[in-house]
């Protein structure tokens, strides 16, 4: 198991280098871009540009630039945004809200998604199965921002059950956004769970379990479920990326003061440094989350770790 973890960590290093380089190049290696918009409508004065270049090492060769950037990154320095605030600081104060939102969404995703999937799987072909299958299909087809807008309209404005915006980031305010954020993933998790369960119910070891005189509840609940859950858990890790994208949209709609909204506003203001910093950090978080999921996978599936 330890070997497996070390192996995965080592594999991650080139990927981290590759992604940060890709991100950096896309924004900073293009001439003229980084300073765009910083000086208002007019182009920036040359000495400002020179100072900016010096600050961000833009006059050096690309690889050196990148290396220096990486160095700063490792020290937690993501640069300064338009207003002269440290990007890292801006993100730090917004993280807790976004994490709250994300965790709530993941819990919803797991609880509802897995239950619906299991229900549909064991009652395959019956009404509950069709219900789940159809509703997940519909849910996947409606983009997050449409669901967000509609939810805001129906549950916030018309019915008044939830606050329309969530500027304070309290738990109650975040319930509706969390459901909106989870909506897409719930559908995928339910479908995946159902498909896995159905497939595992045909497996030979199920027949063996029955031949051992075990009850149906035990055969499904213990033997099959454990096997079926494994791909679902790993999916949730991959899904984190989609969740991040969804968070940007959801935070915008509900005016949540989180990382996603910060990114959205930085894009609108053409704040290159903030955009790069935020995206880099999000990607790193995504990578580490996937590492944890991989380790979890190794724990759950002995075939992977005990090779």
């Amino acid at each position: 198991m330890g070997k497996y973890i070390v192996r995965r960590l080592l594999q991650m290093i080139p990927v981290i280098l590759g992604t940060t380089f890709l991100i950096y190049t896309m924004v900073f290696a293009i001439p003229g871009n980084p300073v765009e918009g910083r000086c208002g409508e007019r182009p920036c004065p040359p000495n400002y540009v020179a100072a900016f270049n010096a600050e961000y090492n833009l006059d050096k060769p690309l690889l050196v630039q990148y290396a220096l950037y990486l160095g700063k990154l490792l020290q937690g320095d993501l640069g300064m945004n338009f207003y002269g605030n440290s990007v890292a600081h801006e993100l730090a104060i917004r993280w807790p809200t976004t994490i709250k939102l994300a965790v709530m969404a993941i819990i919803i995703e797991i609880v509802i998604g897995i239950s619906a999937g299991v229900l549909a799987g064991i009652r395959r072909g019956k009404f509950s199965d069709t219900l789940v299958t159809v509703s997940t299909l519909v849910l996947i087809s409606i983009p997050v921002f449409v669901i967000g807008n509609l939810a805001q309209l129906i549950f916030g404005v018309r019915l008044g059950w939830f606050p329309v915006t969530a500027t304070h980031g309290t738990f109650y305010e975040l319930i509706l956004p969390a459901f909106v954020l989870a909506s897409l993933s719930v559908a995928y998790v339910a479908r995946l769970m159902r498909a896995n369960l159905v497939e595992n119910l045909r497996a030979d070891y199920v027949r063996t379990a029955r031949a051992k005189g075990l009850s149906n509840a035990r055969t499904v609940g213990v033997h099959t479920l454990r096997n079926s859950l494994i791909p679902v858990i790993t999916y949730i890790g991959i899904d984190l990326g989609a969740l991040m994208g969804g968070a940007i949209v959801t935070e915008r709609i509900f005016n949540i003061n989180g990382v996603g909204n910060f990114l959205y506003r930085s894009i609108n203001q053409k704040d290159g440094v903030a955009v790069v910093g935020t995206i880099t950090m999000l990607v790193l978080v995504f990578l580490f989350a996937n590492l944890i999921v991989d380790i979890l996978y190794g724990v759950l599936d002995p075939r992977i770790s005990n090779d």
Partner: protein
Amino acid sequence: MTELRRQRTDLSNEPVVPLQTDAASGPEEVLPDTTTPGARSLGSDAWRELRGRPMFWISLALILLFLVMAIFPELFTSKDPAYADLSKAREKPSADAWFGRDTQGYDVYARTIYGARASISVGILATILSMVLGVVIGIVSGYRGGWMDSVLGRIGEIFLAIPLLLGGILFLYTFPNGPETPFMIGVTKVAFVIGIFAWPTISRLMRSSVLQVKPNDYVQAARALGASPMRIIGSHIVPNSLASVIVVSTINLGVFIAVEATLSFLGVGLVPPVISWGTQISEASGIGLIRVAPHILLFPSFFLSLTVLSFIMLGDVVRDALDPRLR
């Protein structure tokens, strides 16, 4: 001599061809015998299965409807989507404007119809790009193996590490679409960035298909007979591995259309004056506007969702038909 009773099934008297199944595979990989004429291959079995399913025909019909809408919007409306009557802004649906008007007085129905073209174009282009890249890289990785496989795998991981939406935001932030960007350039840029971040999923799928097909006897036999790699890949490996890629790509088409809409919603995708469902919904958002004029939001949303739904449904139905164990 006693008459032997003939027993016929409802199948025609075709010669018997054994159907190979890869017992250890996942739900997608099944190997049809494509070389014997008149044989009951997986393809014809799947077709037979698909024919009988109403879901197949419904999704196909919807897709065709939207495709026609994208190519010939004039068939659906005679109104000009660029004509705005500010005095009638935010008007509810009426006989004059079936879907009402938006904040600038544009006819929502006309814009929805014309918006199909941009949205669907992005979807199709992005799917083609991701498929081409994914299939080629997947085949090379799987067939060649070795260091090339490792390198390509790492590169794929790098692209996979950046979530689709974030990558799209990043790229389109650097190369933004502006009001002057021509239609095709704008569409291509968005499609490009989606395809660039989506190919690793396809290539992984293709690679694992190739790895499952490669050790099979008929491939070894072809190699022993001296067939060139291109031929082996073209005639044996690709037909057998393509099934899952086709299913996933069909579903992806729907997903990509939704992604374009999301990018436009965030302001980085397609930009006005280009009309797409995403830009329409973006302009219709905001709690203040929705409260008073929900129709501006609802109609394009409905069209968007229906299009995405039909592609995903089609992919679902085709996947079920290709999976022999569900029959």
